[in-house]
């Protein structure tokens, strides 16, 4: 099933917050070019896991390797600069700026790296970066509002904008934290199509998702987390029949 070598390799990651064992000895690997979903009941440690990947949280133990190089302990922006992008659960955009500016920021970050001092360059309307941003926004279906302020967008459109912000950097690995949460079915399907479309480019994706419809229409592999531990990893059909997974969800339901 693997399309190639693992792009992301996580070994034995643990993280404890006070008395709570958020992650315990998590192993995880994603093959280049695949779509990998992480599912699990609430409080399973899915978001914490993504936060570990991008350096927002430093794990107590374990290693994180991206494209063959260790990235654990690096500053978030350095990790991102190596080719990872993340879509957050609540859309993180630049609310007071236009859609074009939103995407242009990420394009500049891709072009110039973590810091630039290009004060003599003007980002005018015909600037290549602006053009690129415009094209991408059109592709995600926001081509009509290029100059609108991002804060006026609907929640679904904000998420699409955030996706555009991530995509413009052409990341090798895209992390998506519930990309369709709170969306209407129609919007969800559009997002699934969009994600599939990007997959054509061979971009690797890790998706956290509650919506099983989304999970099973997208994912090539699924990892199930419960109480900070990996309880199963495999192809969708394998997971579907796994009794431990059922138990975890039902147990979670009992606990709740």
């Amino acid at each position, binding site marked *: 099933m693997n399309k190639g070598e693992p792009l992301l390799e996580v070994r034995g990651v643990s993280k404890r917050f006070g008395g709570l064992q958020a992650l315990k000895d998590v192993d995880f690997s994603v093959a280049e070019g695949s779509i990998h979903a992480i599912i699990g009941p609430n409080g399973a440690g899915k978001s914490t896991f993504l936060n570990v990947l991008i350096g927002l949280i430093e794990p107590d133990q374990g290693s994180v390797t991206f494209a063959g190089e260790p990235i654990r302990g690096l500053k978030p922006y350095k990790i991102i600069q190596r080719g990872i*992008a993340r879509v957050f659960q609540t859309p993180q955009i*630049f609310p007071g700026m236009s859609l074009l500016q939103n995407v242009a*920021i*990420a394009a500049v970050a891709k072009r110039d790296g973590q810091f630039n*001092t290009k004060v003599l*360059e*003007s980002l005018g309307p015909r600037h290549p970066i602006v053009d690129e941003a415009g094209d991408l926004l059109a592709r995600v279906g926001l081509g009509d509002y290029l100059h609108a302020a991002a804060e006026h967008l609907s929640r679904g459109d904000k998420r699409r904008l955030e996706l555009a912000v991530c995509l413009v*950097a052409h990341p090798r690995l895209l992390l998506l934290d519930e990309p369709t949460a709170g969306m209407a079915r129609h919007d969800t399907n559009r997002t699934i199509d969009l994600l599939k479309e990007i997959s054509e480019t061979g971009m690797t994706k890790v998706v956290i998702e509650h919506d099983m419809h989304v999970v099973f229409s997208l994912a090539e592999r699924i990892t199930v987390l419960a109480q900070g531990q990996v309880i199963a990893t495999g192809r969708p059909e394998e997971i579907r029949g796994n009794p431990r997974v059922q138990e975890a969800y039902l147990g979670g339901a009992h606990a709740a």
Partner: protein
Amino acid sequence: MGRSPFAADLIAVGLFAAVVLTMPVWIVWIGGYEALATKIVIWAVFALGFDILLGFTGYLSFGHAAFFGTAAYTTGLCLKHLSADILPAFFITGGVSLVVAFVIGLLTLRRSGIYFSILTLAFAEMLHAAALSILQAYTGGDNGLTMHTKPELLGIRMEGLNVFYLAAIVAILGFFAARQIKRSPFGLMLRAIKENAMRLEYTGVNVWAYKMAAYMISAMYASLAGFLMVVLEPYVATKFLHWSTSGEVVIMSVIGGVNTLIGPMIGAAFMLYFENVIQAFIGEQWRLVLGLVFVLIVIFLPGGFVDGFNRIRRAVGLGGRERHHNVPDAPAPVRENRGDRAARQPGE
């Protein structure tokens, strides 16, 4: 990303230059005088630099007097002990200011919001207290740094209109530079800090480096203003380091209109004009009136004078951008909540 930036820019900067350069002429028509014109231009430089920090990145410094004052003292000491020529003073002041800005920035930019504000205030107040007490052998303490020097630039005496034009050139170049920063990729990043620093960090950007850069640039504007102040008048008051000086530049920025570049400069002109010309008409209670004016502006013109101007333009059908707030000081989620709160509150 305007329509035809280059032409628009030429017009804007040209217009600005024309207004500034002719100030000694027109300020007399409205009851002003030359030294006031120079002071307005100097404070405009200060306020302009302040907008690069507050307006672009949203970081509210309550301690910019630290740079204004340190530069003034450094310049004063150079003029007094080294040479009456302002060039050595210029370079030494620049160097000292860079070091001071770097050190203070290093320590204060680790925090944001009010904690950043208070840290900057604390550093400025420490310098102020030091100038008044342990350093008074050098600073002259409360009496201020006095000197007999008549500053000159390459043999030209720096007084009267000479200082004005020097300050005016600095202001025009400063304005041009600030506009260029605003539309450059670099400036885009600065403004993104204010909008959502977290998103910026997770877009692969070294946010801290940009904050530091903005802080240093802003501090250099403040230092330039402090330098010019002493060139104008070879005297340094401890007031230059006092928190009220920091407060004044905040007030100027807000009543003018934050993040508009031109607004804070208008604010500076208004404040100084009020303090020195209108004051004489009102007499003893002028500060009461200023306080009232100030409160009214904050209540009814949240975007300052520039906002007022835009509202008038909209009213007569010329367009103009709508602005809700002076400073979007919180990240988006918080602001959304605040907006919701307003919507839910009855009777508003």
